[in-house]
């Protein structure tokens, strides 16, 4: 199958970070950037599908400035066949603006499947996959935890609150991938060497209008926590008293 995986370059969220001087973004100094967590699962799903179902092509598609090349190259080193870099100075916060650029690239390009991670770990929006599918008029299942493809049709599971939902859909389709569906592989040395020769096409990103912007970005208020009630089981009655009389949660 010809499969597109839309990925995003994001700061490693395990790292400590600071707000930039503009008060609207993260200070990039000293940050490591990588493929967004959920997108890594989407790549793995694409690679496995083609390994299991015969030859095909996996194409990584992403938006961003020049630094994105490093991220696309990493995807190629994991086993993706080629990359498409939709170039823009900065990736907007507005998911629909991004979706317009992706839809313009993916429309009528012959993909059997278009995969996304269920959300990017920087914006935390989780909207681009569904919006791209809608703009393309393709069937969509979001946040899937299990996938089977057979004879041009798919079956997917989604985890809802307290229940698992099963749905069926025809191909071509757009899917957004939850974690845990398949453990992502790491780049091999051979893969890293091979990636150097794989092509990355660069085109301008045809972004849509931006209606959602970041006015301010702040670190969350420090909780006034750090209050140790006591040590061992003897502290329990005092804890329960505080929960009743001070916190009023009992």
């Amino acid at each position: 199958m010809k499969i597109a995986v839309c990925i995003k370059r994001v700061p490693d969220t395990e790292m400590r970070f600071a707000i930039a001087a503009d008060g609207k973004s993260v200070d990039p100094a000293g940050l490591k950037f990588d493929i967004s967590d959920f997108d890594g699962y989407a790549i793995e799903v694409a690679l496995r599908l083609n390994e299991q179902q015969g030859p095909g092509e996996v194409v990584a598609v992403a938006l961003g400035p020049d630094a994105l090349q490093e991220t696309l190259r990493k995807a190629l080193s994991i086993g993706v066949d080629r990359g498409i870099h939709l170039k823009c100075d900065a990736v907007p916060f507005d998911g629909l603006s991004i979706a317009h650029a992706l839809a313009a690239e993916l429309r009528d390009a012959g993909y059997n499947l278009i995969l996304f991670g269920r959300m990017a770990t920087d914006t935390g929006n989780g909207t681009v996959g569904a919006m791209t599918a809608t703009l393309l008029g393709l069937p969509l299942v979001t946040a899937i935890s299990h996938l089977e493809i057979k004879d041009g049709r798919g079956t997917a599971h989604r985890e809802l609150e307290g229940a698992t939902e099963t749905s069926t859909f025809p191909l071509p389709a757009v899917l957004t991938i939850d974690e845990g569906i398949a453990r992502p592989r790491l780049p091999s040395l051979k893969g890293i060497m091979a990636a150097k020769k794989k092509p990355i096409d660069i085109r301008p990103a045809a972004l849509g209008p931006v209606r959602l912007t970041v006015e301010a970005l702040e670190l969350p208020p420090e909780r006034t926590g750090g209050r140790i009630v006591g040590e061992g089981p003897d502290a329990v009655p005092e804890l329960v008293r505080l929960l009743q009389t001070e916190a009023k949660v009992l």
Partner: protein
Amino acid sequence: MANAFAFAELRGGAFRKVAFETVTAARMAADASGGGEVHAMVFGAPGTAAVAEQLGRFGADLVTVVEHPGLGRYAPEVFSATIAAALRGGSYRAALFPASAEGKDLAPRVAAALDLGLASDVTAFELNGDAVIARHPAYIGKAIATLRLTGQPALLSLRPGAIPAREAPRTARTTTAAPAVDPAAARVVVTGLAPRGAAKLDLGEAPVVVSGGRGLKAAENFKLIEELASAFGNAAVGATRAVTDDGWRDPSDQIGQTGRVVSPSLYVAVGISGAVQHLAGMRTSRVIVAINRDKDAPIFKLADYGIVGDLFEVVPRLTEEIRRVRREG
């Protein structure tokens, strides 16, 4: 004066708690627009109209019930087309969705169909002239973004629990409507809905969440967590990623960056050190209690109340105390 729209989520014929929260938020938006009406929409199998009037309690003026034998389960293409048609036909100031599994699937479909901006997973919002200013956790909860959304209606999905349901009773008018597209023609079809752990309180809805981490040492020791949760009577059980990765608990119990994000009134972290990955899923809880052997564990910096000690001694005592308090009322 402008009206506000709310998608009221139903499951198994009953409203989910987020439905009332969504209507409450729509009531806030309508009141801030000069006292407009709240129009709620609910989808379901024939007979759904019987529950519709419940939304009046939270401030809905009009409830449109889209009933069809094919709508007993979520039908994403039918729901989104019908909501898009309703929003196109009315002049709404805002349209509210829950940022639940269903709402997160539905809202971006509607936004793209109408070419409207969407602020997702919003924890607070206010109308500001032609714009909406919304708060939204970004970078897995390590930062809070203040967003500006332009265009009308402004589409927002609300983080469950962030805007509590508030009563604003009125008698809601109820009307029924046909879906905008034929459910039989949908390409994506939900064929099954299998409950996990029947009759358990959902993590996102429970007022109290008791979570366990590696400090429990073995899967069978989660019995202590289960017993504490049962003593509260209104608690759900969560776990860290380390625990679900090891198969001690079902992956759906995971709280954190890559699992569920919860904001209960009370969060009890037992044997959890407080990795960033976990904190991302619970840091907005109203009150946090931590029980851990290591007094330097990062969880104590976040917790409102901490007990340093052996959880195998502390938790049974806490279970006993909570039982006593509840018994004595």
